[in-house]
């Protein structure tokens, strides 16, 4: 099932400059694995070698951080938007 993934500036060069790409998956983990398979340059920036989420990456489904949902097992459906954002300071 195709899901839209919104990319931060830092990853867009790996996707031909696109801000939004469409990849398949029914969970966040599947979506991210499809993403790094299609765009290998993103690989180790998004997922660690053991398949877990990189420490400095926040992933959201419809603006909710998946770490506080069901992490990589969080389900996604057609029409959902997955966003990837680098962890940034504030204050």
């Amino acid at each position, binding site marked *: 099932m195709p899901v839209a993934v*919104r990319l*931060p*500036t*830092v*990853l867009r060069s790996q996707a031909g400059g696109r801000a939004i790409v469409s990849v398949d998956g029914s969970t966040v983990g599947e979506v991210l694995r499809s993403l790094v398979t299609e765009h290998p340059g993103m690989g180790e*920036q*998004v997922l660690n070698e053991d398949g877990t989420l*990189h*420490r*400095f*990456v*926040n992933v*959201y489904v419809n*603006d*909710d*951080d998946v*770490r*506080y949902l069901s992490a990589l097992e969080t389900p996604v459906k057609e029409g959902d938007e997955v*966003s990837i*954002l*680098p*962890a*940034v*300071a*504030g*204050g």
Partner: protein
Amino acid sequence: MRSVLDLIGETPMVEVSQLSPNPNVRLVLKLEGRNPGGSVKDRVALALVEQAEADGILEPGRPDQVLLEPTSGNTGIGLALVARMKGYHLKVVLPTNVSVERRQLLEVWGAEIIESPAEEGSNGAVRMALRLAEEHLDWHMLYQYGNTANPAIHYRTTGPEIWRDCPEVTHLVAGLGTSGTLLGVGRYLKEQKPAIEVWAVEPPAGERVDGLRSLDDGFVPPIFEELGGAQLLDRKTVVRPRESIEVTRRLLTEAGVFVGISTGATVAGAIRCAKQIRPGTTGVVVAISADDGWKYLSTGAWTDDLDVVTKRAENTIYF
């Protein structure tokens, strides 16, 4: 009060349920803009300096002592106020893309500004300050991101104030910057009533930080990891500039409350929180307003075309 510093804290709360999407849920705002330096960060600034004094690192009234801090503005303004009153010299590392008023206020209170590149955002300011601290061992870096005095002051003051003034609270919503407010207030409230949910709101700040070479340049505040932030929070939600400004405007027009753009984001998060409270259940969502609207007049947030203001906000640090 003997000193302006004694005016820090004890901020008022006001109901803004006009914006609640759920008739069974009240929305209440804690107005941290009422602090003398104009933001929630006055509490943190005073606490960081007093902790350094208690540790014997700083000696009040010796202007040759230099304080250093990376900040997107509000912590710097709070520190400038405290440094002015206590006689320290303050250097702040400030990204160039903050609102003009934040910069003006730092100058008014006598802080020395060291600019960091806009394209590196707040992460760039943190990196530059850490490097400067290594190069100048006589400068004292207070480091709000890594100093437990930051969440501790919210645990000691902001949290108890909310519990005293609004014991019916069921949810806490606050912006996530250093994580100090959420860690301190969230922990205090959960200790009083474990069922209270703690929601964090953040802007999509990293989306457009062009100066990041890779995601490895990301930053998680050390206090968030040290104090178990991920275990404390129940939800974290991102609110984008357009919605932040829309809610900032609604707060003014529907509730008569003039607050900063980050409060618009926080209340947008509070509205989402209120929406998911089940029918038949009542709730009281307390949101923390980090500052008032004054510092954002130049952004046109209340006056200009929404599309234009949104574009502007996408390139400005307002958290």
